[in-house]
Each structure stands twice: as structure tokens, then as C-alpha cells.
């Protein structure tokens, strides 16, 4: 089977539809072909949703452990959450206001036998199943640090608190670009405390991120960025985010020298999480938070792009950094 063909995707109504060809698709097609031919990523039939090979995972795991070594001095609380989080957290963290089109809602069936029959019929005939499904009290986790905040309600110690969180995130952004996965991993170093502490954390980790990624042979720089906020109002949020320099991304040229791809990012959240989740700094003010996230899948892909599909042949310095 040719791996360069567009993989069918599942439309909003649950039907399988062919992906619309993107004008930029050409740019990533050779890299996608390399990944699929080498078996590093295994397509599932949904754009941006892949199986990973053992080789791919060994790079991702090496990167994850490297991140932990780099943050060993942070005295960080280690937390791991499932890739599914409570709606009660989601409804208060502002995600629905900013990114409604990227959310993943967990549904189940709560009907009677007659409804069940109708669900089966619709499934058989590939009709929209939506009307027969009901929401649950869970959503897919869109950012790995989001489930953390409600667990830290209360007053933080003097000097704030740091936490490291690793796991899968989901964002509904179907694409054939391997760098734009719908399910992907982030490894975050989060700070909770004062406004100054949050900025200092962000600055420290951008510096560390650049150092780590440069050490892996990647050509990187940090740039001011904005999130893809939804709709016309979102343009205003994006403009505000840029003016205040709340988001930085570490980017690397992958498909073209003039087209940068983000592989890590940092966010200053101000009191966006501290306020709704009742977190206070030691001085009694609403806590400010910041996080730096290593995009583990994107870094893995950038390394495979830079050094080739076989990690056994990668430069010794890169191998010894990932697998000491």
C-alpha cells in the first residue's frame, strides 16, 4: 500500500471521509512516508492518530528521562494523570471558552433496549450515532498540566511549588502532518507561586530547553507565540497573549528553513488557574502559575527528521545524551 495517499479520516458525524488535500501537504509528505515506511508510526485510519513502534518509543522514553535528569534540581512534585480528566475541572479552566473546537468529550450510552437497537442499526449503516450517546462527567485531557491545579488547592509554601507532569493530551486537529498529532505527549515543569516566580520559572526553562535541544543536534530558537484561540474573539485573545509575551515556543525548521515547527512551549498563565482552583501563594495572594512543556512526540519526530529513521546510526553525542 502506498503510504503517500491521504488516509481517510472520520468526520464530525462519525462517517469516514477522505481528507481534504492541504496546499502544504506536499511539504510533509516525504517525512510522513519515511516514518510510515520505517514502521516508526503506524497509521490507524484517523489523521493524527498513530501507533508507535518500539524504536520510536525508545527515543520518546530517552527524551522523557532526559527531561527528568535536567529537572532533578527542581524538587518537583511528580504527578501522573490518566489522559481523561473530570468535566468539573475542565468547565472551570477556561478551555471551552478558548478552544471549543479542539476538545474531546467522553460519551457513553444510557438508553434502553430500543435505543440500543437503534444505535446498532446506525452503526451498521454508518449513520450519525451522536443522538443516541450521552455525555459523561469526563473529557479528554487537552494539556498535561490541567488536572494538576485542582489537586493543589490551598496555600502554597514560601517560594512556591514546582511539579513535573507527563502524559498524553488530546486536541481535535486532524492533519496528515506527522507533527500535528491529535493524541500526543507533553512533559511539563509547572510552577505555582508569585508573579515574579512564574516569570523566573519560564525564563529558566526556556534557557534549559534551548540547551537540551541544541545538545541533541537540533537547530532551535525561542519565539513569542500565541495559541490558536477560537473564532473572531480568539484573534483578540491571541493579540493580547502576544503583546504580553505570555507564550514562547521553542521552534525548529523542519520542512523549510523559513517554516518553523514548535517542539516545546512555555506559558505564563497569570492567575488563570490560581483563581478558579483556589490556589494562593504564601503571601495570601492568588497564585500565578507558569509551565514549560517539552513536546515529547514532536521532539522525537524532530530527532528522527534530523538524524534519520535509525537511532543506531545517530551521532554518538546524541545517543549518549538520550541513553547514558
Amino acid at each position, binding site marked *: 500500500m502506498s503510504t503517500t495517499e491521504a488516509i481517510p479520516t472520520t468526520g464530525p458525524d462519525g462517517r469516514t471521509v477522505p481528507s481534504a488535500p492541504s496546499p502544504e501537504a506536499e511539504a510533509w509528505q516525504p517525512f510522513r512516508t519515511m516514518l510510515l515506511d520505517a514502521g516508526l508510526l503506524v497509521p490507524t485510519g484517523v489523521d493524527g492518530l498513530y501507533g508507535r513502534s518500539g524504536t520510536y518509543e525508545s527515543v520518546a522514553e530517552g527524551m522523557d528521562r532526559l527531561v527528568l535528569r535536567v529537572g532533578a534540581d527542581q524538587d518537583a512534585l511528580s504527578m501522573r494523570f490518566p489522559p481523561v480528566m473530570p468535566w468539573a475541572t475542565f468547565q472551570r479552566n*477556561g478551555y471551552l*471558552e*478558548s478552544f471549543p473546537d479542539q476538545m474531546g468529550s467522553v460519551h457513553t450510552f444510557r438508553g434502553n433496549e430500543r435505543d440500543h437497537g437503534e444505535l446498532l442499526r446506525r452503526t451498521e449503516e454508518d449513520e450519525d450515532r451522536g443522538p443516541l450517546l450521552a455525555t459523561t462527567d469526563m473529557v479528554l485531557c487537552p494539556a498535561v498540566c490541567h488536572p494538576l491545579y485542582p489537586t493543589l488547592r490551598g496555600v502554597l509554601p514560601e517560594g512556591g511549588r514546582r511539579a513535573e507532569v507527563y502524559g498524553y493530551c488530546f486536541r481535535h486537529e486532524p492533519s496528515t502532518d506527522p507533527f500535528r498529532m491529535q493524541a500526543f505527549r507533553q512533559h511539563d515543569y509547572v510552577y505555582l507561586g508569585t508573579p515574579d516566580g512564574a516569570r523566573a520559572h519560564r525564563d529558566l526553562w526556556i534557557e534549559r530547553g534551548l540547551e537540551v535541544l541544541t545538545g541533541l543536534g537540533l537547530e532551535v530558537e525561542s519565539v513569542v507565540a500565541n495559541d490558536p484561540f477560537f473564532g*473572531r*474573539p480568539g*484573534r*483578540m*485573545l491571541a*493579540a*493580547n*497573549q502576544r*503583546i504580553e509575551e505570555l507564550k514562547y515556543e521553542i521552534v525548529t525548521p523542519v520542512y523549510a528553513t523559513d517554516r518553523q515547527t514548535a517542539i516545546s512551549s512555555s506559558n505564563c498563565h497569570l492567575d488563570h488557574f490560581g483563581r478558579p482552583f483556589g490556589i494562593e501563594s504564601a503571601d495570601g495572594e492568588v497564585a500565578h502559575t507558569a509551565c514549560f512543556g517539552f513536546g515529547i512526540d514532536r521532539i522525537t519526530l524532530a530527532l528522527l527528521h534530523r538524524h534519520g529513521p535509525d537511532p543506531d546510526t545517530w551521532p554518538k553525542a546524541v545517543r549518549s545524551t538520550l541513553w547514558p
Partner: protein
Amino acid sequence: MDQEIRQVLAEHGRLAVDVSSLDENTDLFAAGMTSHASVNVMLALEDAFDIEFAESMLKKSTFESIASIRAGVLEMTDA
């Protein structure tokens, strides 16, 4: 017009202070309006004055004070 602007701010600005105490040049963001609240203010102003802000106006400075909001609304109603 200022009265309508103040009403929109009272309903959507989520300000930390009473809207009637605001000077027309008071920095609304300093008075507690968040980015998200400013988006709701923007949408409510569009409804109240039956306008649509130009793309170039969708930025913080347009909504930073009652005076700047009035200037923005006038720009769109004159257009």
C-alpha cells in the same frame, strides 16, 4: 453612548470596582478586566451598537478604557 458602554462593562467586564466609579480614562485591565472578559465586552458592544469591529481593532488597546471603547465604536458607526 457612555451610559451604554458602562452598562456593557457592568454586565460583562467582571471588574473589581463599581463601574460608576470609573473615569473615562481608567485602565480597565488594571481595574480587573481579564482578557476573557474583554472578549465578552467586545461581543456585547457589537450587539449593543449593532456594529462589527474591524479585524485591526481586535486588540487590547481598543478596549482598555471607556474613552478608547467610545473611539472604537464611533469609528465603526461612522464607517
